[in-house]
């Protein structure tokens, strides 16, 4: 029921609209020449002013702005490129310096080590020489002492023997005979006493 009324409404409305069209459509207002001259006049005026202002004032400004921006961006890009290059060069320099200083430090360290080693060796040699000399001296002394010792011992032996003989026998014996005996003894048993 409702649907029926709805459709009737639509139909009625369309019908009504058609009537209105038929009644009022008196052609296109565009073809009415009443205001043609006025429209041409105002179109020329407004469009002419628009064209003059745009072409003389506004468009050159926009074009200049665009050019300026383009050149500015180009300059900035170039400056950035330059700075990048310089920073790369500096980085290289820095690396060079670092590697150089590393090398130097190594050299210094090596030199110092060699110096120290040389010094140590020199000192060692002199010390060794000194020690050797001392040893030789001491050995000489020992040898002297040793040589002297056997003679002294022989002397002491001869003296003690002569005194003993004096005390035992009561007569003095010729020292030379005693010394002959002692010499003979010491020669025979010298190895036993001195351990040579």
């Amino acid at each position, binding site marked *: 029921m409702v649907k029926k009324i*709805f459709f009737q*409404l*639509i139909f009625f*409305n*369309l019908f*009504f*609209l058609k009537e*209105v*069209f038929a009644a*009022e*459509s008196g*052609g*296109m*207002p*565009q*073809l*009415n020449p*009443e*205001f*043609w*001259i*006025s*429209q*041409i*006049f*105002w*179109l*020329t005026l*407004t*469009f002419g*002013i*628009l*064209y003059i*202002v*745009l*072409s003389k*004032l*506004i*468009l050159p*400004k*926009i*074009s*200049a*702005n*665009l050019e*300026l*921006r383009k050149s*500015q*961006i180009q300059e900035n890009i170039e400056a950035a490129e330059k700075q990048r290059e310089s920073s790369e060069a500096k980085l290289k320099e820095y690396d060079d310096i670092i590697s150089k200083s590393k090398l130097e430090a190594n050299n210094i360290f090596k030199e110092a080590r060699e110096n120290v080693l040389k010094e140590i060796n020199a000192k060692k040699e002199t010390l060794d020489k000194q020690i050797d000399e001392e040893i030789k001296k001491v050995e000489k002394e020992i040898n002297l002492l040793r040589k002297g010792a056997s003679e002294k011992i022989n002397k002491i032996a001869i003296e003690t023997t002569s005194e003993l003989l004096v005390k035992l026998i009561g007569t003095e014996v010729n020292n030379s005979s005693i010394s002959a005996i002692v010499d003979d003894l010491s020669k025979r048993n010298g190895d036993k006493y001195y351990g040579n």
Partner: protein
Amino acid sequence: MAANPMTQFEVYRIGPEIKVGAFDISFTNASLFMVISSLAILIIFNLGSKKNSLLPNKIQLLAELSYTFVSKMISDTAGSKAKPYFSFIFSLFMFVLFCNMFGMIPYTFTVTSHIIVTFVLAAFIFIGVTIIGFIKHGIGYLKLFVPSGVPIVLLPLIVVIEIISYLSRPISLSVRLFANMMAGHTMMKVFGGFVISLGVVGGWLPLSFSVALTGLEILVAFLQAYVFAILTCIYLNDALNLHH
């Protein structure tokens, strides 16, 4: 009154009647919207060109994008020789575009929906292009009507066709814009009328159509301005680089 879709195109006087000699040049609603469109263009592009910052703001970006858009359009279709005519084509494109777009606002008047306006523009372009052609190439500009590589038997026919097509350029250019604008606005008005007459119950369907049509008409408004400008470029190209 609201039911007739053609009443929106009616021109009426605003203010007093101004007469110069026998001619009536009164300020009308059409004149009003021409002035509004021109002022809007001037204000927008003046604001857009005032400050030059490296990072453009929105209005500057709009101005510069339009500039590069039109400049690219011209260089693509007419080559580098068309550079001196850039300002004219830019103004033309912007004027038609703004008139079309202002017409999309309800209760406004569409300047470009009047054949006399579009015809004056097209005729001016036609005459200008013809004069440029004759200045650049002298009488050799007439070679435009004689395409190369056509059999001699067909030549008289082709030349006649070419001349007719050349002479019909202003008509086709003006009628294209005028008819598109008029048809679109009439259709929108008709659908709008359906919404009212079908009421709350049945008005939703034409309403949705009306919404869709509004989007379509905005597209058409832009497209027709673009077509108008690009056809001007093509005609200019014929006049500047004669290689028919």
